[in-house]
């Protein structure tokens, strides 16, 4: 028996039993045994007893687990999919059990923020890249793992669960990681593309959250398809400007993880970001919205961080700026839209 055949039986780990985590676990389970980590003992019990989690039926190959150390021991390949605000602390817990042979492919679309003593999100006015990190950078900072990848694309959990056709991008500096990701995820309904611009793809996935909130707002205001077309195209331009300032290349934004994900989120009333924008436009305040939901909408945090980055790097980002004012200052969505429509910039495309 060779080592190779042995390792093919090694399970794959998924960290985070949220909505997207569960869907990814189900995709992986079609090829391999999957260990699914959940922090909450109750979630584990529920999966064991009912095979149900977050409205998904969990595949028989999935075993829920509560022990990060055991997971790192059993699996060489891990998919961390936890909200960005918990990502670093999760990595700190996981890190002592990781070795350079581990491969991590994350599916979190958000920024990590490190503030030094005395600084807070309320007081700090500008942020730069030494304070704002993508998840792959967090993995590299917190652990010895270097073979890192990310999963990004138009992947609405409900549609994936229903086996509708879809695609994703695995981005990594390592072809090895991309090939592996393809082997593990691909099936007849799910196409997997590779990209070497890791940070670019991550940024595309994160920045799209901003435009998703704006799309929700347009629908909340009752506007139609012309407005949406305007938003998608101008939103794309803004994403590219921001993305380049933060270290990505234009190309990543034109692919599945960029334009693909953007079109999907702007058209889907299923996404959390969209819902937030919709409710804001209907006149609710951020506080009211946050009180009534326990799900994490990455978009709010993304807008907050991105606005301050745009100020630091002097990037013109009108959509992000006005949404920031709606969320954290006293602008209404109607005023915001009026402002944007009068915005004096009218060059269509100037970055190619």
């Amino acid at each position, binding site marked *: 028996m060779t*080592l*190779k055949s*042995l*390792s*093919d039986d090694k399970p794959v780990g998924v960290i985070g039993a949220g909505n997207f985590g569960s869907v990814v676990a189900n995709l992986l389970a079609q090829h391999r045994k999957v260990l699914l980590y959940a922090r909450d003992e109750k979630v584990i019990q529920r999966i064991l007893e009912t095979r149900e989690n977050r409205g998904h039926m969990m595949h028989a190959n999935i075993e829920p687990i509560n022990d990060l150390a055991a997971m790192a021991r059993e699996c*060489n390949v891990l998919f961390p999919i936890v909200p960005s605000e918990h990502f670093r602390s999760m990595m700190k817990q996981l*890190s*002592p059990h990781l*070795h*350079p*042979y581990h*491969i991590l492919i994350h599916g979190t679309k958000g920024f990590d923020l490190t503030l030094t003593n005395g600084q807070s999100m309320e007081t700090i006015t500008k942020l730069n890249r030494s304070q704002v990190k993508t998840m792959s950078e967090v993995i590299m*900072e917190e*652990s*010895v793992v*270097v*073979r890192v990848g990310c999963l990004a694309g138009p992947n609405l959990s409900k549609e994936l669960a229903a086996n509708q056709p879809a695609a994703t991008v695995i981005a990594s*500096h*390592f*072809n*090895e990681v991309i090939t592996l990701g393809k082997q593990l995820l691909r099936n007849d309904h799910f196409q997997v593309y590779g990209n070497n611009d890791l940070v670019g793809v991550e940024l595309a996935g994160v920045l799209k959250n901003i435009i998703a909130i704006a799309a929700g707002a347009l629908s909340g205001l009752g506007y139609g398809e012309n407005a949406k077309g305007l938003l998608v195209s101008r939103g794309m331009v803004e994403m590219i400007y921001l993305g380049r300032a933060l270290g990505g290349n234009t190309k990543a934004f034109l692919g599945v993880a960029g334009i693909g994900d953007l079109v999907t989120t702007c058209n889907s009333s299923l996404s959390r970001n969209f819902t937030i924008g919709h409710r804001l436009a209907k006149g609710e305040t951020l506080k009211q919205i946050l009180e009534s939901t326990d799900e994490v909408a990455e978009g709010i945090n993304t807008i907050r961080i991105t606005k301050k980055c745009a100020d630091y790097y002097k990037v013109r980002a009108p959509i992000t700026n006005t949404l920031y004012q709606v969320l954290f200052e006293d602008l209404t969505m109607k005023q915001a839209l009026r402002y944007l429509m009068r915005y004096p910039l009218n060059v269509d495309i100037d970055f190619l």
Partner: protein
Amino acid sequence: MEVVEKKNKNKKYKPILDGIPDWPVYQLSKNRKEFIEEVANNSIARVKELRPTTKQLIDELQTTVYREQQRMKRNRWRVDPVDEPRFWASIKEDMVGLDTKPPEEAQAKAEEILHRIVSRYANEIAGNFNASSYKVTREIVKFWFSRLLNGARVKKFGAFFRNRYTLRDKIHIVGKVKQLRTLATKGTVIMVPTHFSNLDSILIGWVIHSLGLPAFIYGAGLNLFNIKIFAYFMNSLGAYKVDRRKKNLPYLETLKLYSTLAIQKGAHSLFFPGGTRSRSGVLEKQLKLGLLSSAVEAQRNLYIDSLAKDEEVRKIFVVPVTLNYHFVLEAPDLIDDYLSVKGQDRYLPEQDKYGSWQLLQFLFKFFTKGSNISVSIGKALDVMGNYVDDNGNSLDPQGRVIDTRDYFISNEQITIDKQREDEYTRMLSQKIVSEYHRINRVFASHLVAFVAFELWQKKHPKLDLFGLLRLPEEDQVIPYEEFRETCKRVRKQIYKLKDEGKVYHATHLKGNIDLVIRHGLDNVGIFHLKRPLLLNREGNVITKDFNTLYYYHNRLVGYDLEKFI
């Protein structure tokens, strides 16, 4: 006035290996023939891997022959062997009609030709370490340097033959010396210094010897071997030859394999990873990945080889080194090069070359004036850029031990993945660059050059670099008071950076700011005919050569000090 380096440890180091026969480089030269054969065989395998079909192989050979004949026609050097044209002519003859032969016959023939070419290259590259001439060289260098030093410093007849001063008084070695010495006994060291001046190779050679380390092998440009006396020294020091004219695939692969295999066999090596001397005076930002990748590859091969044998793997340690000068002999030429490439027609270099007389003047100044060189030895890294402890264990930022082997494992096995290793090499090079900035030692001369140039820049915010370099003479004055205050501010920030572990500074940077400025002005570009910085009669700061000032200023670029001007 001379500010002495206080923390200077003028220590003598015992050799870590007793006799020259124990040195890896000696072992290598003793088994020269077998080693060359091994290099050749490996190169053939590699070329065949890269050109898998017979047609591709033949095409490659034809390109090689063509390029070699072009080179011989256009650019022949004294060092080139006489039988070269004959050799390539015979290869060309043998290639005739090769592509019309049946594939099997053609493949066999092509491989035979490849073998001849590659063996020739391997022979040409291989160094010729010679224990007795190594010793002779070492003594000559030591003798003449100390004669020069003593003769110049103590102006008394007879001082010439005394040994009051040694090179150690001039050249300060600081940093992780002890670790370097320990690791050289435990594994294979690859030293990667910054490259500013042609003096660097001589300097590093002396440093290696005076630290008690065995000779390192290093690639020296074949052009240096044109000069007979140089060739003698180089050969005796374990240098192998790098011919930058040859860009064909078989040559490049042979060269890389020579370095990889020598490292694998435990020969300590020296690369200047920046490739050539820094033209602009900026610390290296982009490294050449070709030679660095041989470090990663050698380590992977050692791990693979260890599977068959049951012995501990010899680990490879990468040690970044920065060389800090108050002056760089060829600075005016280097910056001219840089500016004319960058500025195209906006920059017109002035013709001003130095001759032997200037060289003598410089040497005399170097040995008489208080102008020191410091060599900072950085913390050792493994081939992945992790720090290692004194036992050679790789550590992660939290201080946990990492097994470097794990980086080469996928699916529980050590695998060869070229793309992965290219990425590792890129990561290693980034780490080396950041280490350069961290271990760089700021001299007073760097400080004054930086402050002066930035002040002028600030006074003329609308001028670009080339406009600034053509600033009229009446604008080239900085009031001393203003200069002094700015120096103080920038120095404070340098202290802060030092506390954060982001840079070092020479001890002479501390103390009374007027003395520090004086020290800096006295030393910056000390030997140049036109001084980059000096005080005028009114005691204000002026420049006689804006270009070299820009060059010395560049040394402190990359630390975000501009904000403090």
